[in-house]
C-alpha cells in the first residue's frame, strides 16, 4: 500500500510455532468439565487424619493429592504438569465450598456463564463420597450461617457482593517464585527443619508452631513427590516412544522433573518447569483465581542470560519454551458458583505475568526476556496468562513502549498497561517501604502485589455505586425489591439544595461501606480455618514466624480490598441532579424522580435532559470536579476502617460485575435506563464520551488513582488507524506517555474492529462517541447512513482473538 507507512505483518513464521499451534488447538478444542478427583482424594485424606490439627490434616490431604492424582503428559509438551486429572477442568475445593456444586448439580453443565460439564461418574462420587463427609464443614456454609444481618440485607438486594472469598480459596497472591526457583523446595525445607530445631516444646505456643512446621514439611514433600511422578511418567513414555526426536524430549523432561522443583534450577528450562509445578500445586491446594507469576522477566533473566552465554540455548529455543508455558497457563479453568461467575465470567484464572518497570535500585529493568514474554503472548494469543506491563515514563525506553503498542495491535486486549510510578505509589500507600515497593507487580485484574511478602484479599467485596444514587432519591428504598434496604435519608423532595442531596448519597455510601467492613471481619475469622501450607512455603516470614499465610504470617498484611463498581454512573447521576435540578433549575427533583420511577417511559423529554447533562469522560469541568470530590470522599471512608490485618484498601475493578449489578438498579439521573449494565471500571459510560481519547484521559485523571491501592481499571477503544500506520503507532505511544503524566494508573485497549462496528450499527445509542475520521473530515459513526456505515465496516479489519 502507498501512503501512510503500513506496518508489515511478520514474515515467515518460525518453525517452533507448529508445535505451539498444535498445543493451542488442543486447549481450544477441549470442553471445560468438572473434575472431582482432587476433591475425592482430599476427602479421603481428611478422613484418614481425623483428630489431628486442621493444618496438618490439610497438609496431609494435599500430600495425598500429589501422590495419587492422575499424572499425564501429552504429545508435544515440553513443560508438563496439570492441577487436575485433565486440562480445562474445574477442580472442586471441597473444604472451601463443596456445597456450591450441591446447589448446581443439575445446572452446572448448561449454566449461562462458565458451564462445566459434569460427568455422571463425578456426580455419583459427589453424592456418595464428598457431600456426606463435608456437610456443615465448609467455609461457605460457615459464612452463610454467620453473615451479619445488615450485610446480608445489602447482599441479597444486590447492593454489595461479598461471597467471593467464601466460595473459593485465597488466590490474589504472588508467591515467592524467585526463592522457589533459586533455592528449590529442599532449600526451603532446610529452613523449616532449622526453625523446628529452635523450638522448645515446654514453651507455650511451640506445640502449635511445631504442628505448623510439620504441615509445611508435608506440603513440601508433596510437591517433590508430584514432580517425581511426572519424571517417572516421562521416563516410561520415552521407553515406549517410537519417534526418536520425541523420545529425546521425553528423556529430557524426565531428567528435569527429577531435578526441580526439589533442587535449585540450573537452566532456564528447569526454572520454567520449577515455576509451573509450584503453580499447579498452589492452585490445587485452594482452587482460586489470581495466582500471579509476577515479574518473570526479572527472576528468570539470570537463567536465560547464563544459558545464552554458555551456548546452552538459542533465543528461538527459549521462546519456544516460554510459548509452551503460556499454553500451560491456559489449561486450567476456575470453578466458581454461578453468581460469582456472572461477576467474573470467562473461567478467569487471572494469572498475571508482568514485564518492564524499574528494578530495586530504581533503574530501567527491561531486558531481552521482557520482549520475549511480550512475544509469547503475540505468538500464543490465548486468554492466559494475563499479561501486564509496568511502564516507567522516566526510565523505560521508546523501543519497549513500541513493542507494547505492537502487542496492543493484535487486538487480544493484552497487555494491560500500568503506569509504573502509580503502582509504586499504591504499594507504598499499603504501608510498604519504597525500596521494596519498586518490586511491585500487577495482580489478578489490576490490583497491586509484592512477591512472597504480602497477604491480602485484594477484592473482598464490591459496592454497587448505582444503588447509592437510587437510595438518595428513594429514602433508602430499593426500586427493584420495593423495600427499604439502606439507611433513612429523608424525603428527597425536601432536599432544597445540592448539598442536601449529596449528603444523602454519602450517607448510603457510608452505610454500604460499614456493612462490608462488618461482613469482612466475619470472613477474616472464617478464613483462619483455611490454612494454605503449600502457598506459605515461599513466604519466608511464614516459616520464620511459624504462622500460615492465612493467619497473617507474611511479612506484610494489608486490609481487605473494597471494590467500587459503577463509577461513571455515580458521577453522571450526581452531575445531572446538580446541573438540572439545582444549577439550571430545568427540572424539579419531583419530576426527575417520577421519570425515574417510570424508567423514562412517557418522560422522554426528561430522559433527553438527563442524557445531555454534563458527562464524565469529556473533560467537562462540572463532572470532573464531582469526580475528584466524591472519590476522595470514598477513599477517605474506606481507609477509616481496618481489619485485623491492616487498613482497608479501596479499588475500582469490575471484571464483569457491572452487568449483574446493573440488573439491580433502576433508572438513574444519568439517563441510564433501568436494569442496564453499569459502566465498567473508571471508563465512561458507553456512548457518553463524545470528545475522543484525550478527553477521556483528562476526566479519568480526576480520580485520585494513587489512593485506590487495589488498582483502577480503564478500558478504551482505539481506532484502527491508530494501529495500522506508523504515524498511528507513534501517536498511541504519545497517548500512553500522556496518560502516565496525568497520573492515570492503567489502561487496556479494545480495537475497533468489524464486530464493534456491526454492534454500533445495531445499537447506535451505545456507541454515540465512535468517530469516523479521515484527513480533513470527521463524523460520528452513528450519524452516517447505513450504506456508508456498511462501506466502512467492509473496510475495517477483523481482529482475531482466542478466548477460553
Amino acid at each position, binding site marked *: *500500500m502507498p501512503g501512510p507507512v503500513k506496518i508489515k505483518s511478520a514474515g515467515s513464521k518460525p518453525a517452533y510455532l507448529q508445535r505451539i499451534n498444535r498445543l493451542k488447538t488442543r486447549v481450544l478444542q477441549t470442553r471445560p468439565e468438572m473434575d472431582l478427583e482432587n476433591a475425592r482424594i482430599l476427602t479421603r485424606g481428611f478422613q484418614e487424619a481425623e483428630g489431628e490439627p486442621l493444618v496438618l490434616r490439610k497438609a496431609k490431604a494435599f500430600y495425598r493429592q500429589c501422590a495419587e492424582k492422575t499424572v499425564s503428559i501429552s504429545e508435544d509438551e515440553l513443560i508438563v504438569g496439570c492441577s487436575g486429572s485433565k486440562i480445562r477442568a474445574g477442580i472442586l475445593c471441597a473444604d472451601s465450598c463443596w456445597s456450591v456444586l450441591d446447589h448446581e448439580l443439575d445446572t452446572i453443565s448448561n449454566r449461562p456463564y462458565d458451564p462445566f460439564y459434569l460427568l455422571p461418574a463425578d456426580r455419583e462420587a459427589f453424592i456418595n463420597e464428598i457431600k456426606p463427609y463435608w456437610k456443615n464443614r465448609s467455609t461457605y456454609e460457615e459464612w452463610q450461617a454467620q453473615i451479619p444481618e445488615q450485610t446480608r440485607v445489602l447482599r441479597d438486594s444486590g447492593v454489595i457482593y461479598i461471597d467471593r472469598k467464601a466460595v473459593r480459596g485465597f488466590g490474589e497472591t504472588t508467591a515467592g517464585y524467585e526463592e522457589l526457583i533459586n533455592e528449590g523446595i529442599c532449600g526451603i525445607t532446610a529452613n523449616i527443619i532449622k526453625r523446628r530445631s529452635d523450638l522448645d516444646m515446654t514453651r507455650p505456643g511451640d506445640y502449635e508452631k511445631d504442628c505448623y512446621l510439620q504441615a509445611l514439611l508435608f506440603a513440601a514433600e508433596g510437591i517433590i513427590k508430584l514432580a517425581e511422578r511426572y519424571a517417572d511418567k516421562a521416563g516410561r513414555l520415552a521407553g515406549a516412544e517410537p519417534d526418536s526426536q520425541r523420545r529425546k524430549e521425553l528423556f529430557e523432561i524426565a531428567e528435569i522433573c527429577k531435578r526441580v522443583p526439589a533442587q535449585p534450577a540450573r537452566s532456564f528450562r528447569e526454572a520454567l518447569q520449577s515455576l509451573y509445578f509450584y503453580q499447579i500445586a498452589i492452585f490445587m491446594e485452594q482452587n482460586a483465581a489470581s495466582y500471579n507469576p509476577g515479574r518473570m522477566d526479572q527472576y528468570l533473566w539470570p537463567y536465560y542470560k547464563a544459558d545464552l552465554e554458555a551456548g546452552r540455548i538459542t533465543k528461538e529455543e527459549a521462546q519456544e519454551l516460554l510459548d509452551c508455558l503460556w499454553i500451560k497457563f491456559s489449561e486450567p479453568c476456575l470453578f466458581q458458583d454461578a453468581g460469582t461467575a456472572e461477576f467474573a465470567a470467562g473461567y478467569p484464572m487471572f494469572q498475571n505475568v508482568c514485564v518492564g518497570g524499574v528494578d530495586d535500585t530504581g533503574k530501567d529493568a527491561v531486558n531481552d526476556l521482557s520482549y520475549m514474554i511480550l512475544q509469547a503472548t503475540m505468538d500464543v494469543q490465548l486468554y492466559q496468562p494475563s499479561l501486564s506491563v509496568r511502564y516507567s515514563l522516566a526510565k523505560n525506553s521508546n523501543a519497549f513502549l513500541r513493542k507494547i503498542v505492537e502487542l496492543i495491535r493484535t487486538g487480544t486486549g493484552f497487555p494491560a498497561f500500568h503506569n509504573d510510578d502509580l503502582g509504586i505509589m499504591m504499594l507504598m500507600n499499603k504501608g510498604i517501604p519504597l525500596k521494596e515497593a519498586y518490586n511491585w507487580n500487577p495482580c489478578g485484574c489490576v490490583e497491586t502485589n509484592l512477591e512472597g511478602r504480602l497477604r491480602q484479599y485484594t477484592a473482598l467485596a464490591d459496592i454497587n455505586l448505582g444503588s447509592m444514587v437510587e437510595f438518595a432519591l428513594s429514602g433508602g428504598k430499593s426500586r427493584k425489591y420495593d423495600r427499604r434496604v439502606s439507611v433513612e435519608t429523608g424525603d428527597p423532595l425536601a432536599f432544597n439544595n445540592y448539598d442536601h442531596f449529596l449528603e444523602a448519597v454519602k450517607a448510603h455510601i457510608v452505610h454500604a461501606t460499614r456493612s462490608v467492613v462488618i461482613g469482612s471481619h466475619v470472613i477474616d475469622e472464617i478464613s483462619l480455618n483455611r490454612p494454605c501450607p503449600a502457598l506459605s512455603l515461599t513466604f519466608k516470614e511464614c516459616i520464620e514466624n511459624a504462622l500460615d499465610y492465612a493467619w497473617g504470617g507474611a511479612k506484610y498484611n494489608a486490609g481487605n480490598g473494597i471494590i467500587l463498581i459503577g463509577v461513571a454512573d455515580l458521577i453522571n447521576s450526581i452531575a445531572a441532579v446538580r446541573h438540572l435540578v439545582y444549577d439550571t433549575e430545568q427540572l424539579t427533583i419531583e419530576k426527575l424522580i417520577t421519570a425515574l420511577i417510570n424508567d423514562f417511559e412517557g418522560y422522554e423529554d426528561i430522559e433527553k435532559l438527563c442524557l445531555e447533562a454534563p458527562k464524565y469522560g469529556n473533560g467537562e469541568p462540572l463532572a470532573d470536579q464531582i469526580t475528584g470530590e466524591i472519590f476522595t470522599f470514598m477513599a477517605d471512608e474506606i481507609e477509616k476502617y481496618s481489619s485485623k490485618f491492616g487498613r482497608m484498601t479501596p479499588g475500582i475493578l469490575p471484571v464483569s460485575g457491572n452487568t449483574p449489578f446493573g440488573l439491580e438498579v433502576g433508572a438513574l439521573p444519568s439517563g441510564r435506563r433501568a436494569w442496564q449494565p453499569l459502566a465498567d471500571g473508571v471508563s465512561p459510560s458507553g456512548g457518553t464520551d463524545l*470528545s475522543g481519547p*484525550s478527553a477521556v484521559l483528562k476526566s479519568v485523571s480526576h480520580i485520585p488513582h494513587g489512593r485506590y491501592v487495589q488498582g483502577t481499571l480503564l478500558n478504551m477503544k482505539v481506532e484502527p488507524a491508530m494501529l495500522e500506520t506508523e504515524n498511528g503507532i507513534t*501517536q498511541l505511544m504519545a497517548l500512553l*506517555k500522556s496518560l502516565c503524566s496525568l497520573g492515570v494508573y492503567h489502561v487496556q485497549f479494545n480495537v475497533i474492529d468489524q464486530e464493534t462496528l456491526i454492534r454500533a450499527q445495531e445499537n447506535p445509542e451505545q456507541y454515540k462517541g465512535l468517530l469516523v475520521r479521515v484527513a480533513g473530515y470527521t463524523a460520528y459513526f452513528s*450519524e452516517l447512513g447505513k450504506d456508508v456505515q456498511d462501506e466502512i465496516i467492509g473496510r*475495517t479489519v477483523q481482529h482475531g482473538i482466542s478466548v477460553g
Partner: protein
Amino acid sequence: MSADKTAAGSVLRIERSSIHDGLGLRTVIFLKGCPLNCSWCSTPESKEFAFEKGYAAELCSACGRCIESCPEKAISYTDDHLQVQTEANKCTRCSRCVGICPSNALKMYGTTLSVSEVMREVSKDEIFYFYSGGGVTLSGGEPLSQAGFSAAVLKKCKVLGINTAMESSLYSNYESIMMILPWLDDLYVDIKHMDSSVHRKWVGKDNRLVLENITKMDQSTYPLTIVVRIPLIPGFNDSDQNLLATLRFCKGLSRLNKIELLPYHRLGSETYRHLGLNNPCIDLIPPTADQLSERVAFMKQQNSKINICAGSGFTSE
C-alpha cells in the same frame, strides 16, 4: 456573532485527538463558511457562514414538540403528518426546537465561540501535544474567511508553544493570509485542478488566485512548510494530464513537504439529506485502494524527489 471579528468566530465543531490533520495528536477547529462550492464536498454543513438546521427525518417521531416550541411558527407537519418541515426564511436559528426534540432528529450546525473559549478547549490537550509533537489545526470551511479570528487563535497557540497548522483552499485576498503567516507552522492546501475552466466548473471559482497565493506563501520570509493535497475525484482531476500539471507546479515550490492524495469519499452524504441539499456527486464511486495506489505510483514515477503519498483514511486498508 459578535461585531468584533477577532473576538468571536463561527465554528462548526472542535475535534480532539485527531491524527490525520497535521503532526502528532491535534485539536482541529472546523470553522463555518467557505467561498468555494466544490461538487464533491464532504462537509456541506460547513459551506454557509450562518448556522444551519439539520433534520434527520428517519429519527423523527412526529411528536410535534418542535412545532409547539417555535416562537416564529416556522415549523409545521408535512402533509402526511409523518414528518415536520421548517420554513427557512422564518427560522431564526434560535435552537429551541433542537433542544426540545426527544429523538435528536433536529440538529443545529454551527456555534459562536470567542478566542478565549476556543483556547480553553485547546489547552485541555496541552500534555498530549507535548508528547506527540501535535498541536492545533484550523480547518473548515475556510479559516481565511475569518482571518482575524483565525490569526488570533494561532497567535495564542504559538505563544504557548503549540504547533499550528491550517487546512485552507487559499481562496482569499493576500491581506488575510498576511495576518496568519507569522503564526503558522504548517500549511495544508488543496490543488483541486490545474485547468482554470475545469476548476471553475466543479468548484465554482477560478484557480488562479489559489495558485498565486501558494506561490506567494512559498516565497514569504516565514519558515512555514507546505503540504499540497489533491482530493482525488474520479473523472474530475485524476487524469495523467492533470496530475502531471500539478506535479509541474509543485516542483517550483521550495517549502513543499509532500503531496497527499486524498481519495473522494461519501461520508458526508447523510448530511446532504439532513440539510435538504442536493448532493451533486451522489452517484460518484470512490476510488478503490488499488486505484489510489496506482495514481500515487504514477506520480512517483514522474518525480522521485517529491514525497507523494495517499492520505490516511479508510482507503489505507
